[in-house]
């Protein structure tokens, strides 16, 4: 269960907007890279975000590169989950692998600054500010297993391989 404030972004937030190529040299220094997270989409985001907050996007969140640095620095910045109308495939799988919950829902029902409460396992999103519940799909079983184990590294070590069903 997570509780926090929403930070709203539009459609097609690319990995170049989340972790720009011009900061390529910071990829081996993730805490430093995290200070620039989503900078090209919202220059103040890294300063505004507080532990537990949510990133809320439109459609096709995370399109582009395979750089796992993108979900990793969103998590490092303290974000508890990303909610979007849809996700790009590689970002979605990377997010689960690094232990960042990602949920598909109608984000038109969330505005910037709304207080949200999210139960990932049960797929329940409450918009406390608006007093509404927002429907979401639960994660596919294979991915929920990985997320619940704390990401892919922990999952693989725990089961000495993949345990997906």
């Amino acid at each position, binding site marked *: 269960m997570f509780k926090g404030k929403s930070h709203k972004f539009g459609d*097609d937030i690319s990995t170049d907007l989340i972790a720009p190529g011009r900061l390529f040299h910071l*990829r081996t220094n993730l805490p430093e890279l995290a200070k620039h997270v989503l900078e090209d989409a919202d220059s103040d985001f890294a300063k505004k975000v507080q532990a537990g907050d949510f990133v809320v996007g439109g459609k096709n969140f995370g399109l582009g590169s395979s750089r796992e640095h993108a979900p990793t620095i969103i998590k490092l910045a303290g974000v508890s989950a990303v909610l979007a109308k849809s996700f790009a495939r590689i970002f979605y*799988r990377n997010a689960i692998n690094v232990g960042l919950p990602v949920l598909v829902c109608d984000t038109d029902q969330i505005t910037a600054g709304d207080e949200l409460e999210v139960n990932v396992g049960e797929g329940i999103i409450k918009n406390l500010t608006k007093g509404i519940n927002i429907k979401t799909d639960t994660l596919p079983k294979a991915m929920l297993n990985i997320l619940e184990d704390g990401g892919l590294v922990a999952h693989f070590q725990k089961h000495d391989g993949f345990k997906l069903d």
Partner: protein
Amino acid sequence: MKQTLAEKILSRKSGQGVKAGDIVVVDVDVAMVQDGTGPLAVEQLKKMDKEQAANPEKTILFIDHAAPSPRRELSNAHTILRDFAKKTGSQLSEAGEGVCHQILVESHVNPGDVVIGADSHTCTSGALAAFATGMGSTDVAIGMASGKTWFRVPETIRISVSGDFQKGVYAKDLILHIIGLIGADGATYKALEFGGATIDKMSMADRFVLSNMAVEAGAKVGLIASDATTKAYLDSVGRGDKFIELAPDLGVEYERAIEIDALKLEPTISFPHTVDNTKKISEVGEVKLDQVFIGTCTNGRIEDLRIAAQILKGKKRHPDTRLLICPASKKVYLEAIKEGLIEIFIEANAAIMNPGCGACVGVHQGILADGERCLATQNRNFKGRMGNPEGFIYLSSPATAAASAIEGKIVDPRKYL
């Protein structure tokens, strides 16, 4: 059970008949990372105390994104990859060798292979009927060390293309048209399967362009059946004995099927800042250019450089427009030298770059100034892509790029052909 190409390859690999939606664990034939994603992969393996490669001959670490290194932090990142390669016996592709996806098809990937790469354009190898897909550092790290990975078998969108291209229209125009048609998320999670009479007649170089950009429509893989053209390509790179024929079953049902008449296509441009923001050349209007860039894993092959040289021969770039040319690999570079193409480019006042990815990904070489416009043959034009969120990137075929470099604005290449 009739199968799509994706289902067929994954059935072969998993030893069971699979269908879309199934979850399978399969052996990995080729695993690769590059200098942007590799250091994090190595770090994950260190964390797991698993610094090893299950198949060192087919585990490849590429130094291509920041190559040669433009700064200290990146030099140190390269050292991490060199050390890992030495320790595990994995293959290292050094600065100057070229772009990972080009080298994978030249030297490593065969039909029926499962290829995982920590780079989104790993789907390029799908043109060789390999199940090749981009993943993150941790997924590939575990694939490298254990020799296994997991997939959900994707549903397939079939793209059937018939008819001949008009003069001046190329595979790049076709794939930009397709992405414009279905959208940047139109194939999210799906397999794109390209086929039909036009694809059957296409060269491997053109097929690589289609598969390379499948991810720009959100696809997991961009697959093309293997045939006589595939065999001839494998023969040319010394791997003819690795050829196997793989094709979807006739009459298989696809989730969606799209028919395209190649004859109706025009040279096509993607406008900033998304790849699906496409316009036909006749709709472009006046777009002045500060830079033109011909290269990358999409369109930096010898066939692309030949087309550009044909247009640029005896001409100069526009004085206000920089022209950057980057062969995709050492092999392509050498061929371009032997054929006299590099001389044509230099006489046209182009800057020739060392094979690599730096300009396309915004790391070094060709970073745009605020407000500048660049026409590039690469696969992406996202805001910030070429190192500056205040820059504007347009995408085209090498022919359109070369013609536009001469005039200093986006122009129809057909008058130069």
